[in-house]
């Protein structure tokens, strides 16, 4: 009897959808499009922090560039009323991520911080996740890249260098989160303080358009940003429930 009870409990437990409440943290990024100037500092910051390869001109021309965060640009109108808006696009760390379910080897899954993680050395390179991702922020290593001497001396020792045939993407600088956690543990704190950890892109943003934090902590800056009336999520209709919140651009021309 006891056996069946265990089965039933297990069943109930595992039938419950994986939910934000189960996470230790719910890392969230808020990006204010009203002040994003599209300068590209975040792109370089990410490249430096996460050992993104320099693919070279012809690989770039073939569309094999690897930019975990990219600036998308959208025009409205024609001269003289042309308007240009930028939107930084990186892995949205969806809570209902299509990429996770499709990986046959569980190389990508949702970790306890609500992060959409990518396990490089588990990846077999079916590239299905990249197809399933509606934001197209997963980048594939079409070949092994190398760094000209002595550029390799810059490589960040906290982040691996990916080999050919592996999918990679934004991690919200998980290595920094990891360090922050250790630090919190050393200081005998249970949780990371708000603002204590910043991904490279957020850290570098000259206009401070980006904010990073834990939305489970209602006092955090990012939690406030979510309450901002301008907050929205890109392609929300796809119900991927991203963890990246964008704040609408303000159109001053309108009355």
């Amino acid at each position, binding site marked *: 009897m006891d056996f069946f009870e265990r089965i039933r409990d297990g069943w109930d437990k*595992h*039938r419950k959808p994986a939910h934000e409440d*189960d996470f230790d943290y719910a890392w969230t990024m808020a990006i204010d499009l009203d002040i994003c100037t599209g300068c590209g500092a975040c792109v370089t910051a990410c490249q430096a922090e996460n050992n993104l390869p320099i693919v070279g001109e012809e690989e770039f021309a073939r569309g094999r560039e690897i930019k975990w965060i990219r600036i998308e640009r959208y025009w409205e109108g024609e001269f003289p009323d042309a308007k240009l808006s930028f939107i930084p696009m990186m892995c949205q760390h969806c809570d*209902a*991520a299509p990429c*996770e*379910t499709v*990986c046959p080897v569980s190389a990508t899954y*949702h970790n306890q911080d609500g992060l959409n993680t990518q396990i490089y050395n588990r990846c077999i390179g079916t590239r299905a996740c990249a197809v399933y991702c509606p934001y197209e922020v997963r980048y594939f290593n079409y070949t092994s890249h190398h760094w000209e001497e002595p550029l390799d001396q810059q490589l960040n020792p906290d982040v691996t260098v990916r080999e050919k045939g592996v999918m990679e993407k934004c991690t919200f600088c998980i290595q920094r989160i990891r360090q922050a956690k250790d630090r919190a543990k050393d200081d005998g704190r249970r949780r990371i303080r708000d603002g204590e950890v910043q991904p490279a892109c957020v850290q570098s943003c000259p206009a401070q358009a980006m904010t990073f934090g834990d939305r489970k902590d209602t006092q955090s800056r990012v939690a406030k940003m979510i309450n901002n009336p301008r907050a929205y999520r890109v392609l929300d209709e796809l119900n991927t429930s991203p963890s990246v919140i964008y704040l609408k651009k303000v159109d001053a021309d309108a009355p």
Partner: protein
Amino acid sequence: MSPVPIEGVEEVLGKKFSVIKRFTFVGAVCGGMLGFALAAGTAVLYLHPTGGRPIITIPPFLIIAYELTILFGILATVLGFFLSARLPMIKERVYVPATAVDKFAVTVACDSQPHFQQAAKILSTAGAGEVSQLEEEA
């Protein structure tokens, strides 16, 4: 023995019963349960929350179960066939190669000479092309 299956011969010789369908059924059922157990078990033992779905996700696991149902069904059927058809042939049995071409043969097990004569008579009157005696080692 015949080069082609002969419809209705069972009726005459009257042994219609076969265990194959049971093999198939049992195999399929086992396969189905095993399939679901495999999928669900894996999910529970190696917890990887994905896409905000529950750990045990019914629809995909049913597909796995479905495939394994068929797989085991097939294997069981094949097994059942070999067992019930007494194949593969372990020890030598009487065999008339011509039957693999265009001859039809009837084997009658006789334990003594008189019996053989008797059988031969019956067969030849039935219009057998040829009757011959084959010794079978015990």
